[in-house]
C-alpha cells in the first residue's frame, strides 16, 4: 500500500517558541486532512531541538525537523534552500503556513521554487468533492471573498493569525518524529544579520483595545488613552493618520496596512471609520465608537456609539472605572 500523502504545516519557530498560529493550523489542518484523506505533518527548522509532544497532542501525525545553529536567525534564503530540498522528495499535497511577516516572505520563494500556486492571507479553507484545497481570501479592500484553487502540487496558502481556534490537546495521540539533515548552511550573499530590538507591542492578541485616531490632537494626549487602556488591562492602538503624523509608533496601527485585530472589546476614539481602518478591526466582538460627528461612518459598524468629545468622555470613563 502506498503511503498516504500529506498536508504539511510549515511551522515558524521564532523567539524561542513555536508561533501560536501553528496550533491554529493544526486544528484546522486535522479537519482538512481527514476530508482529503491525508496525513497531517509539521516541518520545523530550529537552532536546537525541543520537546515536540505538544504538536502531536494537537494533531500532528508526523513532525519533521532540521536542527542547526543557522536557524537562530530569519534568513529566508537558507530556509527556502533546505525546505525545497525536503519538498523535492516528499509526497505533499498541501502546504500551509502562517501569514506572519516571515511566512509571507518565505512562502512565495518556496512556491516559486516549486512553480506551484500560492494564495496569500487566507481567512478560510475547505476541501472540494475532488479533494482539492479551496483557498478563501478577502480581496479588493475586503469587498469580496475569492475562492481560489490551484492545479499544481503542492497547493500552498498562507493563513492569517487568529482566523482559526487552537484545539484541545489529546496527550494520548501518537506521532512520529523525524530528524532531517540540514543540507545548506551557508548563504554567501548574506554578510551579517543581527537582532536590533524586540517588538514588544503586540496588539494582535489583546482582549481590549483602546484606539485613537485624528480626533486625538497630539502625541501627549495618547497618554489619556493609555491610562484608560491600562485601567482596563487593554492595549493602546491607532489609525494610520496618527501614525503617519508621527504621534504614535507604527506597531500600534490597526488596519489594512497595519495589524488585524479581533478583541472582545474595541474602543474607537476620534476615528472616522475609513474602509482601510475597518478592514483591521471589523471582526471585533463589540465595538464602541466615540466621535463628535454623528455622520461618521464608524457609527455604521459600531455596536455602541457616543456622539461626544473624546476629551470629555475618556476622563469620565476613567473616573467611573476607578470607582
Amino acid at each position, binding site marked *: 500500500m502506498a503511503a498516504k500523502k500529506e498536508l504539511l504545516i510549515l511551522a515558524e519557530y521564532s523567539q524561542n517558541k513555536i508561533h501560536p498560529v501553528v496550533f491554529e493550523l493544526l486544528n484546522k489542518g486535522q479537519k482538512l486532512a481527514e476530508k482529503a484523506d491525508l496525513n497531517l505533518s509539521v516541518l520545523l527548522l530550529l537552532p536546537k531541538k525541543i520537546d515536540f509532544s505538544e504538536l502531536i497532542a494537537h494533531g500532528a501525525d508526523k513532525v519533521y525537523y532540521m536542527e542547526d545553529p543557522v536557524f537562530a536567525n530569519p534568513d529566508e534564503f537558507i530556509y527556502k534552500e533546505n525546505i525545497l530540498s525536503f519538498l523535492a522528495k516528499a509526497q505533499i499535497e498541501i502546504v500551509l503556513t502562517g501569514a506572519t511577516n516571515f511566512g509571507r516572505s518565505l512562502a512565495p520563494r518556496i512556491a*516559486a521554487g516549486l512553480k506551484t500556486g500560492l494564495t496569500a492571507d487566507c481567512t478560510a479553507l475547505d476541501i472540494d468533492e475532488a479533494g482539492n484545497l479551496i483557498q478563501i481570501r478577502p480581496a479588493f479592500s475586503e469587498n*469580496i471573498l475569492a475562492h481560489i484553487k490551484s492545479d499544481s502540487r503542492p497547493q500552498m496558502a498562507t493563513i492569517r493569525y487568529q482566523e482559526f481556534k487552537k484545539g484541545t490537546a489529546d496527550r494520548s495521540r501518537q506521532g512520529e518524529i523525524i530528524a532531517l539533515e540540514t543540507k545548506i548552511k551557508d548563504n554567501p550573499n548574506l554578510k551579517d544579520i543581527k537582532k536590533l530590538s524586540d517588538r514588544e507591542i503586540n496588539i494582535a492578541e489583546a482582549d481590549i483595545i483602546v484606539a485613537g485616531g485624528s480626533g486625538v490632537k497630539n502625541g501627549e494626549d495618547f497618554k489619556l488613552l493609555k491610562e484608560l487602556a491600562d485601567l482596563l488591562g487593554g492595549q493602546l492602538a491607532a489609525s494610520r493618520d496618527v501614525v503617519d503624523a508621527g504621534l504614535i509608533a*507604527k506597531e500600534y496601527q490597526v488596519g489594512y496596512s497595519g495589524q488585524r485585530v479581533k478583541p472582545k472589546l474595541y474602543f474607537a476614539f476620534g476615528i472616522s471609520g475609513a474602509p482601510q481602518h475597518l478592514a483591521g478591526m*471589523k471582526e471585533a466582538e463589540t465595538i464602541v465608537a466615540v466621535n463628535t460627528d454623528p455622520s461618521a461612518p464608524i457609527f455604521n459598524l459600531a455596536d455602541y456609539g457616543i456622539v461626544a468629545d473624546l476629551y470629555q468622555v475618556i476622563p469620565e470613563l476613567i473616573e467611573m472605572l476607578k470607582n
Partner: protein
Amino acid sequence: MHIIVLIKQVPEMDKVLFDSEKGRIDRKSAGVEVNPFDLNALETAVAIKEQTGAEISVLSMGPNRAEEALKEAVARGADNAYLLSDQKFAGADTIATSASLAAAVETIGAYDLIIAGEMSVDGDTAQVGPQTAEFLNINHAAYVSELISLNESEITIKTSLWQANYSKSFSYPLLITVTKDINTPRLPSFKAKLKARKAEVKNLTLADIKEKLKIDKVGFKGSPTWVDNIVVPAEISRKTKVFSEEEKESAYHKIKEILIEKNLMED
C-alpha cells in the same frame, strides 16, 4: 550601480466603486495610479541615486496604458523605462507575473539592486517581490523599513521579522520590498513632468524575454492558481445604539455592563 524598480499600475482603490452584485470592482468608476507602495520603492532608488549616481530603470508588466505610470516614474527620477506588455500575459497570477518580470529583468541586463513595493493595493499578495527574487535565484529582504547603509559592494537594511527588528547586510545582487515607513515620496516638479511626457518607454513583448523565461507558458495558461468562485460576504451589519452627548452616562453604564458580561473587569 544599476537599480531596477518594479512598478505596477493599479486602480485608485479609495475611489473605485464596487459592484457587489457582479462581485468585482467597476474599473471605469475610477482612474489608475502608480501603486502607492511602489512610489516608496522608487523614492528609495532616487535617494540612492542622489547619493551614488546610480542609474534607475523602472519595469512594469501591464497593458499599454501602464506607460503613463512609467512616465510618472521618469518624472520622479527614473532614467529608463520598460513596459512588458503582450496579450499573452493577460490573466497572470503571481507565479506567471514574477517569472515574466524576472525574465524581463534578465533581458534588460546587469543590475545590482531590485526594489519592489511591499504589496500592490489591488493584487494585495506581497508575493511578487520574493517570487521574482526566487526566479532570479538571488537573495531578497522583505518589509524593509530603513536603508541603514550602502556602498558599492554592500547594503544594510532594517526589516521586521519574527516579531522583532533585524538588520541584515548583503552583497549584490539583492531584491528588497519596502514598506511605507521607509520614506515619504516627493512630488515631481512641473518641469520634470513636462520632460517625462516625451520620455521613451521601451516595449518588451513575450518574444523579447522568451529565452530567459523559466516557466513554459505565461499569462492565464501559465498560472497555477485561478479564481474558482467569488462570494460577496454578508455585510457585517451591527445594530448600532447611538447615545447623544446628554445620554453619556447611560453609555458609560452600558460599557460597564459589557465589561462585566465579557469578564473583562480587572479585580
